């Protein structure tokens, strides 16, 4: 079990390393920092000093190692768009807002998708099953940014129940969290349904029924535990989609989290902040994947004892 986790951890670290390589090589693509950071009328002497200070005269691999060394310490330089802020510090400031939003989105997804998927499987072919399937089809075809706007239209403009955008109270979180969760609900409900259907068909479930175990216990004690592995593996993907969703939805709702910072930084050509935000997203993503692996081990005894 420990070996399995170490293996997963090592492969996550490796992926993270690849991301730093990508981010570094992209910073090379974006042109020389000399043009970006120095005024046009800089003298040759100033340029030489700048190049030496920044290590731009070093070979590329050495520049990358310096970049990596700084990155490990969270040092991506200072923001160009928000003066006086360190790039990573600025991103970290915004991180709690994004985590709150993402956390609520995950919660909403679980609360709706799991019961819906289970009910659809248990009452296969019934009205609730058809509703769940229709919802799954519709949910995966609806662009989340458009849904976000339609939600504003209905709940903020028309009904006046919730604020249109911004940050502050819990009410500000509700619409964006629903907009992020929407797609996930349909995906997770569909997955839960098919996993449950497969398990409900298994021999040991039939045996439990023959033994006279109550239907409630069959579904929730016997079937659900075995079916849970499949939705759990989806959690890794869930983390990625919520991350992507947060970039888009924060922009819809002008919600000042990491995703909003990313888009603003790109618009302002603030490369240090873009680098910091990408690495921060990648770290969150890797950590949540490791968490999934850990849960997976707990739920699936075959790995625990293997």
């Amino acid at each position, binding site marked *: 079990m420990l070996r399995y986790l170490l293996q997963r951890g090592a492969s996550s670290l490796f992926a993270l390393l690849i*991301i730093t390589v990508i981010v570094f090589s992209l910073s090379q693509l974006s042109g020389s920092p000399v043009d970006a950071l120095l005024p046009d009328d800089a003298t040759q002497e100033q340029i030489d000093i700048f190049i030496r200070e920044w290590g731009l005269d070093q070979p590329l691999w050495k520049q990358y190692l310096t970049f990596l060394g700084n990155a490990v310490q969270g040092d991506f330089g200072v923001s160009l768009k928000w003066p006086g802020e360190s790039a990573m510090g600025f991103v970290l400031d915004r991180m709690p807002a994004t985590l709150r939003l993402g956390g609520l989105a995950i919660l909403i997804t679980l609360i709706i998708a799991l019961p819906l998927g289970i009910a659809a499987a248990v009452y296969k072919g019934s009205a609730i099953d058809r509703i769940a399937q229709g919802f799954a089809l519709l949910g995966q075809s609806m*662009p989340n940014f458009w849904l976000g706007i339609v939600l504003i239209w209905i709940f903020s403009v028309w009904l006046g129940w919730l604020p249109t955008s911004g940050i502050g109270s819990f009410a500000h979180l509700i619409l964006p969290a629903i907009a992020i969760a929407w797609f996930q609900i349909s995906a997770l409900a569909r997955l839960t349904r098919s996993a449950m259907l497969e398990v409900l068909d298994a021999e040991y479930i039939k045996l439990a029924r023959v033994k006279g175990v109550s239907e409630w216990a069959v579904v929730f004690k016997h079937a659900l535990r075995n079916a849970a592995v499949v939705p759990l593996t989806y959690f890794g993907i869930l983390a990625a989609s919520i991350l*992507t969703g947060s970039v888009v939805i924060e922009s819809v709702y002008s919600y000042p989290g990491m995703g909003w910072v990313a888009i603003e930084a790109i618009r302002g050509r603030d490369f240090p902040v873009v680098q910091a935000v990408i690495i921060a997203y*990648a770290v969150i993503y890797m950590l949540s994947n490791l968490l999934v692996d850990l849960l997976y081990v707990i739920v699936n005894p075959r790995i625990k004892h293997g």
Partner: protein
Amino acid sequence: MAEVQISAQRPRRSLWQRSRDFPILPLAVLLIVFIIPAFFAHWIALHDPYVPNLRARLQPPIFFGGTWEYPLGTDRLGRDIYSRIVHGAWYVLAVSFIGILVGVVVGTTLGLIAGYVRGWFDGFVMRLVDISLALPAMLLALALAAAMGASFLSVVIVVGFALWAYFARQVRAEVLLLRNADFVARSRVAGSSHFRILFRHILPNVTNTIVVLATLQVGIAIMLDASLSFLGIGIPRPTPTWGLLVSDGRDFIATDWWIAFFPGLAIMLTVLSVNMIGDWLRDTLDPRLRQV
């Protein structure tokens, strides 16, 4: 070694029998909303999608007080929403088609070779697949947009990057089964080169899979393209891509809802019908892909 059954006879109704379940309605919707506009925009558009007409600003759609002159209303510069959607279809189609093509070519080639030669190359490619699947495409999109600026090329790269690993993984898995098949060994004995075996004998056997997988990816590609345009890191203005049209209407949702509503509806109808056709194609050609 256990023998691998290639010709696994799965019970399959003939294509003719299957065609009765053909999703006619989704196909019709797809043609009307997406395909026909993409190829015949110049004939069916009512107005120029780029030229402002300040006298026709913010006209409501027909049935909401508007006229047939501007069936879906106009935006704040007086441009016809309907004509802009119709002209945008071509770019949506081009990005998703070329992006998927990039994914198919890269993924299939790597998957074919990895599954056939095995060894360190296989390990290397599968490592890349893992990393690529683990990296949210949005991160790459952000990085590319920051580094080289958003363009048609950067969107195509992002779409291709997001999809290639699925093709590589699936094709490799099938090649692993096929490489031990009788017909491969016989072809080898008959003196075929490895190159010929891979591309003349094995590739045709995985085309069904590729076609089905590609169809199922169209929706993902369109959605990705729309998200990027919405964020302003897709094909740059003034090209009326659908995501950009929605973003144009975002700030006017309280008063002029039609600006954002109809382009989003076009995205939804297109993705919905593509997905339904993809599901049908999968069930018909390659039901094993249900798990993918």
